[in-house]
């Protein structure tokens, strides 16, 4: 996994609350069996018109946000399904950093699995960032994971909390399956103690 250290980029303002994973990546694109290539389909129903051309009304289609890499949105971002296609699509669209006042649990967790950083900031701070990005397309932020700060050209705007272990994994780009496999001994010994009454998918349990 690519480490996340410090990222600087243009803010893409998505001033909406409860943005759900069905909007981030509609279901018709979940049939792909690859991890990549979802970017063009992100926010599909909002982003394109019926004829497939970009919808100029969609916030992120407005001039100045073409190369945005820091997505800033309203509260409860990523609610809905567990589809990891949502962070895959956002990353493929260019966003490695997402800032919001709150996130849905599964989406939040899925981001870390993909070297992406979801940043929780206070609602007022997010609103300020959204206002600035809307007034000044091209407005840039730097997110520093080591220092846990978000800053713009004038200096630090806010600091944020992040779980120490997740931070460590992200900074080093660690493979979480590999980490668990280091505890093979613990897993095997746990398995020895499991009840024989527990179900087995291959056969039913008998008396």
């Amino acid at each position, binding site marked *: 996994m690519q480490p996340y250290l410090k990222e600087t980029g243009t803010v893409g303002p998505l001033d*909406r*609350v*409860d943005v*759900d994973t*069905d*909007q981030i990546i*509609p*279901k*018709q694109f*979940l*049939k*792909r*069996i*690859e*991890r990549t290539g979802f970017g063009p389909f992100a926010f599909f*129903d909002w982003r394109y018109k019926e004829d497939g051309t970009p919808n100029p009304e969609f916030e992120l289609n407005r001039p100045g946000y073409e190369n945005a890499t820091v997505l800033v949105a*309203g*509260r*409860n971002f990523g*609610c*809905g*399904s*567990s*589809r*990891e*296609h949502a*962070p895959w699509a956002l990353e493929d669209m260019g966003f490695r950093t997402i800032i919001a006042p*709150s996130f*849905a*649990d*599964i989406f939040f*967790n*899925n981001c870390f*699995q*993909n070297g992406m950083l979801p940043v929780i900031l206070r609602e007022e701070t997010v609103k300020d960032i959204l206002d600035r990005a809307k007034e000044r397309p091209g407005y840039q932020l730097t997110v520093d994971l080591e220092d846990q700060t978000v800053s713009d050209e004038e200096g630090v705007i806010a600091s944020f909390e992040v779980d*120490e*272990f997740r931070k460590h994994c992200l900074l080093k780009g660690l493979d*979480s*399956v590999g*980490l*668990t*496999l280091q*505890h093979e001994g*613990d*897993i095997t010994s*746990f*398995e020895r103690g*499991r*009840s024989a*009454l*527990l*179900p*087995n*998918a*291959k*056969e*039913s*349990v*008998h*008396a």
Partner: protein
Amino acid sequence: MTTKPKTLFEKIWAAHLVREAQGEPALLYIDLHLVHEVTSPQAFESLRLTGRIVRRPDLTVATMDHNVPTWDRSLPVTDEISRAQMDTLAANCREFGVPLYDLNSDKQGIVHVIGPELGLTQPGMTIVCGDSHTSTHGAFGALAFGIGTSEVEHVLATQCLPQQYPKTMEVRVDGSLPEGVTAKDIILSIIGRLGTAGGSGYVVEYTGEAIRALSMEGRMTVCNMSIEWGARAGMVAPDEKTFAYLEGRPHAPQGKAFERAVEHWRSLNADPGATYDRVEVFHANELVPVVTWGTNPGQVVPITGRVPNPADFADESDRRSIERALEYMGLQPGTPMTEVTIDRVFLGSCTNARIEDLRVAASLIKGKQVSPTVYAMVVPGSMQVKVQAEAEGLDTVFKAAGFDWREAGCSMCLGMNPDILKPGERCASTSNRNFEGRQGKGGRTHLVSPQMAVAAAIEGRFVDVRTWNVGSN
């Protein structure tokens, strides 16, 4: 030494700890991993790329549900991309030795319907699946939650999952439900009051007299929608109903082993004096049938209510969100819900497509006819539900009333298969999400109970099921 009284969640968590270390998430053992075609291909591909194997194929079960067409199973799947995804699952299951209930199996169905039906879902277990509605299995007193594809890979490779310790919440529903008010109305009312993010970070235990009074099917409906208010998982402590449901199921313990299992399962409830981080109380007697009017499951009103007016909301982002929802839904503020007409009815999904749902729905429509302006479909949750319903003659009742009777799958709950709404079509749906475009681009979804859905099918508009059926049979 006295031990601190434990909640049900705390007992299950403690019993599955493989490893705990300062500054790291706990490593939890997973007793059952359910797999479907949409969120698994990339996980299996990663195993291949890293040369890893499925550690416990005997604790892993796969089925096809999201993509599958619900028409005649003898016909080929015409959507090539869907077929490729199903073929990929079949190939992956063969290669890694994972048992699969495919389209030709008489046990195929929605993953959250077949787990309990096969007796694979049991009290005290940890259960995961690459699907947010995995919380359904919590109805049996299991800790069950949805995971992303990277975690699917993690569980395939290790049978474990690193987990942050969640907060705990008790949602107690006191009293008893009035006639015509269902498990679906309980959970939609909870979401309406606590909000779509109200449960974020919590594992919820649903308790109280009204929850105890629910059947296993009803408890599954409640737990199923835990994710719709952001909860990590929802659960109900097992009791005699749970044991009776499980007895004799293919993967449940049999005979003496069943008795021993029940003895253990009886210990799986919150100890007297156990405390939660948060407690919410509802009164079942005050609940009424509800219907969603907007584009998230928290945007819900009593059937006796009206479409809200954005002007009544103080918070600006709430107001804009409501305005956007009303525009999408094509609704005017102040419209009584009983004046909202519908074009489609969907009776199905992991929320409400079990045998009991079909029974109660069929009992209400016997001898009646679906409105000529409505196309209504019934999609059983599994092939076993379908067979059972047909054995009871429910299919005849539905078909005589003008409902389309289909094969099992997720179908129009998320519209990944050919069952979708056309733009602008309005649907009374027993499913779990009313997000924009969920049932088809431009489609307008109203979430309701099975009773409310079939009553709407007959009348062509929403009706109050409590008064609708009186004397009309």
